[in-house]
Structure formats: C-alpha cells, structure tokens
C-alpha cells in the first residue's frame, strides 16, 4: 500500500474557510504548550494575544491602524503570487514608497506645496512601483529570479534609508537623531475616528481589496494572471504574454506597497525615521497566504494578524512574554495553515502496489 495526495478538482468553500480556523486552533494549542514549557502563564498570554484587542475601543482602533498597511500590501502581493511571480521584497518597495513620499515634506517643511498629501501618495505609489519593476525588467530581460532580486533590493532599500537619515535628510534641529523633520499638518493623513490614530489609509486598503477582487474575478487580465499561475503551459498556448504577467504582477505589488509606505510616514509616524522598515512587507506575505491569496480571505487574515500584533503588545505586559512571542505565534499560524490547507485541498489516496 502506498499513500498519495491527489489534488481535488475544485476547492470546496468549507475547505477555504475551515483551513484557517483549524490552523488558528492548532497555533493556539502549540503556543499554549510552548509557553507553559517555558514557565509562562500560557492562558493569560493567549487571552492577551487574541481577546484583549477587542476589549477597548482604543486597542481595537490600533488593530485597524495595523491592518491598513498589511491589507494593502498583501492584496498587491497576492495578485503576483497567483501568477507564480514571487515578489518577496515588498519591504523594500514599502521603504522606497515612504522615502519618495517624504521627499516633499522634507524639501517643503513649511507645507508650501500645492496638494501636498495627494502628491505624496502618488510619489510613494510611483516609487514603490518603479522599484519593484527593476525586478520585472531583470526577470524578463535576463531571467534573473525575481525572488532573489526583490529580496536584494529590499536590503539595499534599508541602506538607502539609512544614508538619507544619517546624511542629507537628517533634521538639522533633531539633536542628531537619524530622522527627518516632523511633517507639516497638510502632509498628514486625516484621521478616520477622532481620538484614535486610525487614518484613512484603511479606506485605501479596503478600496484596493475591492479592486483586487474585481480584477481577479471579473477581468480578463485577472483570468490571464490566474492561468499563468495554475497552468503556465496553457497560458503559453493561449498566447498570454508571460513577460506582461511578470511586469503587471510586480508593478501592482510595488504600487500597493509604495502607497502603504507613503501612508505610514504620512500617518502614525509623521516623519521619515529608522523604524519605517518594521517588517510589514514580510508579514504581508504571511497575510497573503493565510488569506488563501483570495482578496476576501486576505481582508480576514490581515485582521487576524493585526489582532495578534496588538495582542502581543499587551501580552508582553500581562504575561511577561517577549515581543518575539508574536513572531512565534505568526510562524505557527502560517506553518499550520500550509499544513491544513494542503490536507484539505487534497485527498489521501491509498494505492495498492501493483506488480509490473
């Protein structure tokens, strides 16, 4: 007898929603065991991680604040992932978006620039897009793996940011801290709810989700992208241009990450600073996969991961866990998701050994 995994013809709705829930349960169980083994109050930790964020309006609004960049970036990345274009350098595109958007308030610190905010968002979007398209160019022209190129570009983006913050863009009155001037009021995104830090970038992210859904489900281009991912040879025979899919995937991923970067400096940060690369670009990859690479699923998964982020902050206080507990939980979540997802998407078939 031999065991084999056979892919189901169609993924059932039960499987699509069941896998993340099962993964969440397993991740909770694994974390419970691990935290107890380390002698931490595991129950308190899980309570803080998953429920605390819902218990006050302020912490819930912080969840929404975190959710905006994660959702926006993940929607952009998922489009590429479904076409088998692996842009894993969203972190770099996010940084470049933040840098490009910051150029305006850095050079016009008095806010004397017409339409400051829209110009910043556009600058960020274009910056992120162009940065990602370097990888598309190298992939289509020279065959260089976009996985490695986008990753390398991310690491280079961190150095560009450091150079600017330690050199030409350092706030002259900033006591030598590696950060830019504080942005003027007209360079800051309007808040969504008074008394919180949640700003309208959440609306960008939700808007992007709707657009991503329309593109992937209703538009011919989305069909081409999905075909390129699921059946590259079929896409080839149908005459869908592979280079065009690569350009489009990376452009959209970079565009979304760039807008997210611009929103970060024009939102909670209010200046360009060293903490811009905070791992959203990498976490968004987890979010995209957790959401099954489906626009609607990603809305749910970005919310879940944001809850864990904010819950993690309170777990460090109430359960004495290091911040890393969030990473452990996220890691478990993705690993178990990949496990349950595949097991649900495939049937286990037992094949009797035949004599040949």
């Amino acid at each position: 007898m031999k065991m084999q995994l056979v892919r189901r013809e169609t993924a059932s709705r039960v499987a699509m929603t069941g896998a993340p829930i099962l993964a969440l349960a397993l991740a909770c169980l694994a974390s419970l065991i691990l935290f107890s083994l380390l002698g931490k109050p595991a129950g308190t930790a899980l309570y803080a991680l998953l429920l605390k964020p819902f218990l006050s309006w302020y912490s819930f609004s912080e969840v929404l604040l975190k959710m905006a960049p994660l959702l926006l970036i993940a929607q952009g990345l998922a489009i590429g992932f479904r076409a088998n274009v692996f842009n894993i350098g969203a972190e770099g595109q996010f940084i470049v978006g933040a840098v490009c958007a910051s150029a305006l308030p850095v050079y016009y610190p008095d806010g004397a620039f017409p339409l400051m905010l829209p110009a910043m968002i556009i600058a960020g979007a274009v910056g992120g897009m162009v940065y990602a398209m370097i990888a598309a160019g190298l992939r289509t022209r020279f065959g260089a793996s976009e996985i490695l190129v986008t990753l390398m570009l991310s690491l280079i983006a961190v150095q560009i940011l450091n150079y600017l913050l330690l050199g030409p863009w350092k706030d002259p009155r900033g006591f030598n801290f590696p950060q830019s001037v504080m942005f003027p009021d007209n360079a800051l995104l309007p808040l969504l709810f008074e008394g919180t830090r949640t700003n309208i970038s959440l609306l960008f992210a939700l808007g992007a989700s709707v657009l991503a859904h329309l593109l992937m489900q209703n538009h011919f281009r989305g069909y081409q992208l999905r075909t390129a991912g699921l059946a590259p040879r079929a896409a080839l025979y149908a005459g869908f241009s592979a280079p065009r899919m690569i350009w489009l995937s990376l452009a959209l991923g970079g565009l979304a990450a760039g807008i997210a970067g611009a929103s970060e400096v024009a939102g909670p940060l209010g200046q360009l600073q060293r903490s811009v690369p905070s791992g959203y670009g990498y976490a968004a990859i987890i979010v995209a996969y957790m959401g099954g690479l489906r626009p609607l699923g990603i809305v749910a998964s970005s919310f879940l991961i944001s809850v864990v982020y904010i819950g993690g902050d309170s777990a460090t206080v109430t359960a004495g866990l290091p911040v890393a507990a969030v990473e452990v939980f996220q890691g478990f979540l993705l690993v178990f998701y990949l496990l349950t997802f595949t097991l649900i998407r495939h049937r286990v078939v037992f094949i009797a050994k035949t004599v040949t």
Partner: protein
Amino acid sequence: MSVVEFLLAGTVAAALPLMLAALGEMVVEKTGLVNLGLEGMMALGAAIAFICVYETGSHTLGFVAAGLASALLAMVFAGLVLGVKANEVAASLGLGVLGLGLSALFGKSYESLTITGLPKMGLPLLSDIPVIGGTLLTQDIVVWLSIIGAILLWYVLTRTKLGLIIKAVGENSDTARAIGYPVGIIRCASVAFGGAMCGLAGAYASTVYTPLWADGMIAGRGWIALALVVFGTWQTGRVAFGAFLFGLLSLGELTAQAVGVALPSQLLSSLPYLATILMLVVISKRNLPQ
C-alpha cells in the same frame, strides 16, 4: 594593529558564519529546493548554542545542539514542502519567522550574559610568516575544521557518486526517480544538512565571533548567505571565496568609518546585494520566460 592587519585577522571570522550557512543552502538548492529561512535557522542555532555553552561550558556541546536544533527546524520546511506539497516560498518564510521568534523566546533570559570564546591557534611553521602569519593564519579551531569540511564537501559533490545523485535529483527529479534514486529522502536529508549548517553558522556567531546573545544578532547574515549561494554560482570553491569577499566587505564598513573614507558606508554595505543582482543577471539567461 594596523588597518591591514585588522582586516586580515577579522575577515575570516566574519566570513565563517556566511560560508557555513551558504554551503548548507547550496546543497539544498542543488537538490532543486530553495529554503529562504536561513536567517531564522541561524538565529535559532545562535540562541541554542549560547544557552548550551553558558550552562555547560562546552563549545562542542553548543555546536552539536545548535546543529541539531536548526536541522529539526528545517524539517518543518521539509515536511511542508515534501510531505504536503506546500509552496516553498511561504513555507520557508514561515519557518524563518518561527526560528527568529523561538530564538528570541529561548534566549530572552540569557541576554547581556557573557561566555568565553575559543582560543586562536596558529599553524606550525606557517604562523611565523610575517604579516599574515600572526593574523590571517592564526584562527580558532572551528575555522580550521570548517575549511577542512568545505574541502570535504567539494570532494563529495564533485568526485563521488553521492554528489552525482544529488546533482541528478536537482537537475531532473523525474529521471532520478525513474532510475530508482530515493528523491524524497535525498531532498529531505539535504534540507536537514542545510539546517544543521545554518545552526553551526549561528553557533559560531554567538559563541565565538561575538560571544554573547542578543535578539536580532544575526542581523541579516542569513540573507547575505542566501545571496552568496547565487554569487558563488552553486560551486563550493566560489561560495567559500565569496564568503571571504563578503566578510571583508562587512569589515570594510568598519574600516571605512575608522579611517574616515568619503565613501558612504551604506554603499559598502549594499555591495554584496548589488554584486548578487549583477551575478543573477549574468548567469540566468536560461530561465528567461517564454
């Protein structure tokens, strides 16, 4: 110590974690898989090794434990990718995050403690050579063992049947399977080997190079090692040589700052990544999309 002597003495130690991790990943990639979670596996190895050395005082035990722990973590990747056919990029990034998190969780109570590193030892006769004898050729035992290990790896990959089988599995897994080679087992073993090498690399970073544990101490070395595999075009000698080049660059940053070179240090830090992109552009023609 002059700048040249500082560079000669320090390059090897800076290069060693890169070399070990990159050689491990090189074997993984030779069998046709890509594990992007090097950073996490190195971090876990570093934390486990430091805890082990601090508690027992034995470096040997620290290196062994680190190798085993990271190999075990790598098995998560193997299980997901080989067992249930999960996406490699997602699985390895999940593994990386998990490794980073676990290392910080385990190492938390060991932060700001110190242990002693390993003594440097010269080679007989060679250590008497002026300039390089007391610097480049005076290293700790792990360096000497690693260099022997790298030569051994080169021998296995290029001169033995096992090396050919690994190559066959990577270049055409269907054919390899048809001939009757256990493709799954070989891939699984290579992933474990890659993990163990990352563990050793992390152990060297946290118990010899800078004998202390701090969260985030791997500081991107896993990504550099990943770049190094490409830079070295999947050949043992070139990967090892590249490790010394990248190690020199990482020290070059310090040197440039010390002697006040006008070149921004960020440019020097970016050179390994730029060099890797350039290398990808030169060698990847056959991957062109149709």
